[in-house]
């Protein structure tokens, strides 16, 4: 249960190991604040405990001294905290300016926050969405960046369909100690220079509804060589290879963010799981039932509010009419069939 103790020791704080220079600075500032506040806490609360012990009431009518004020003391305990606070402010503002200082030569990556997935887009048009691996396990979007290279994320909140409402999200990487809200109708920026190899967790830190706590992604920091190889290679896009219909369906599953609401492993999320969906008998909120065949799935995608699966809410799933093409739909249906 106390596995975090060694981790704290290794790092002095409980924060995840810093993966950038700036993150390290934040940790140092944090350590400084921990120490000063520990000292002031000990003075204040230690003093309190000591006085409470020392001046415990002894008789029913103890005499107490009449001390109404003391200007010197008053000055000391306003001035010293003031100075400490100003140091915290200045140091914090300094690091903050460094965080917000975007380098000219930065690698620019676009970030789209959608309900409830992250998508990344590189200069060469390579677009990264969450996917599913062969085992049917969801793989979150993974941003690949080279080590020691400044990166600038240009972020906005996007809609799934035109009728959908884009909401606030917040791109948060604990290991890099950076966070920035992603705002509809506007771009916001986030910069970092990772100096550690590895996979780092990305969270969504601004409340965005049902899937908020599932809205995760990864940042993968690799060496420059690996990065160059990755850029040339086809690991993510799968371009060129001839795809089966089900594979295309799997891509559409990620592309249209179905993945944000439908799992493949049997767990209900915002929407019902697709596991075993095809061919099963569906029950609706109004008590009627239907068999999930091709037509039913088409209707569910284009006009989801017609039948509301029992236990789920209407108006959550956007209507994909005019968005998901017939071919994609066929592929999706084929894919759903394979999810057993």
């Amino acid at each position, binding site marked *: 249960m106390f596995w975090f103790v060694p981790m704290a020791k290794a790092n002095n704080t409980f924060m995840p190991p810093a993966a950038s220079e700036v993150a390290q600075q934040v940790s140092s500032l944090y350590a400084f604040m921990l120490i000063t506040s520990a000292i002031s806490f000990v003075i204040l609360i230690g003093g309190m405990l000591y006085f409470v012990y020392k001046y415990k009431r002894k008789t029913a009518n103890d005499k107490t001294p009449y001390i109404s004020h003391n200007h010197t003391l008053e000055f000391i305990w306003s001035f010293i905290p003031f100075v400490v606070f100003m140091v915290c402010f200045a140091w914090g503002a300094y690091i903050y300016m460094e965080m917000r200082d975007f380098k000219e030569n930065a690698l*620019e990556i*676009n970030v789209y926050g959608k309900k409830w997935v992250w998508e990344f*887009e590189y*200069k060469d*048009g390579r677009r990264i969405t969450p996917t599913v691996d062969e085992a049917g396990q969801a793989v979150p979007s993974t941003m690949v960046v080279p080590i020691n290279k400044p990166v600038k994320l*240009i972020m906005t909140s996007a809609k799934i369909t035109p009728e959908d409402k884009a909401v606030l999200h917040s791109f948060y990487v604990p290991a890099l100690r950076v966070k920035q809200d992603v705002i509809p109708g*506007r*771009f*916001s*920026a986030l910069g970092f220079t990772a100096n550690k190899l590895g996979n780092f967790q990305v969270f969504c830190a601004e409340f965005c509804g049902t899937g908020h706590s599932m809205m995760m992604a990864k940042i993968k920091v690799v060496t420059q060589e690996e990065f160059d190889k990755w850029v040339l290679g086809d690991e993510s896009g799968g371009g060129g290879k001839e795809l089966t219909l089900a594979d295309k369906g799997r891509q559409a599953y990620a592309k249209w963010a179905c993945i944000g609401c439908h799992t493949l492993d049997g767990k209900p999320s915002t929407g019902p799981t697709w596991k075993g969906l095809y061919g099963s008998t569906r029950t609706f909120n109004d008590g009627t039932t239907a068999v999930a065949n091709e037509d039913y799935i088409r209707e569910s995608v284009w006009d989801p509010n017609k039948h509301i699966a029992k236990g789920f809410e209407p108006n959550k799933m956007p209507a994909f009419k005019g968005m998901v093409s017939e071919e994609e739909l066929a592929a999706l249906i084929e894919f759903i069939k394979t999810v057993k």
Partner: protein
Amino acid sequence: MAHHQQNHVENHAEHHEIPLSTHLKVFAALIGFTVLTVVTAKGMHFGAFNWVVAFTIATAKAFLVLAFFMHLKGDQRIFKYIIASSFFFVFLLFFFCVLDLLTRIPVTSTLPL
């Protein structure tokens, strides 16, 4: 009803009466200002100064209403402070919102979107 002594420091408002004629004059001034603001806004063109002119006139009118119709003139000081604080805090809201909006650096993307 017991009639005890309470502290009278702030409690003796002179029921300050403003004579009728003053009210009529103030009313005339207000109408005059209204005509003036219409004339300056519709008849003349100061460009960006339109704002300034209109607001100056409106503020002048507001002063008249506050001082005479609302009897602030000659009334207890505390009322003036109270009302002044309300304008001050509206200004604060305005100031810091504008501070943010004016100093935002727009983020532009060099990527194809």
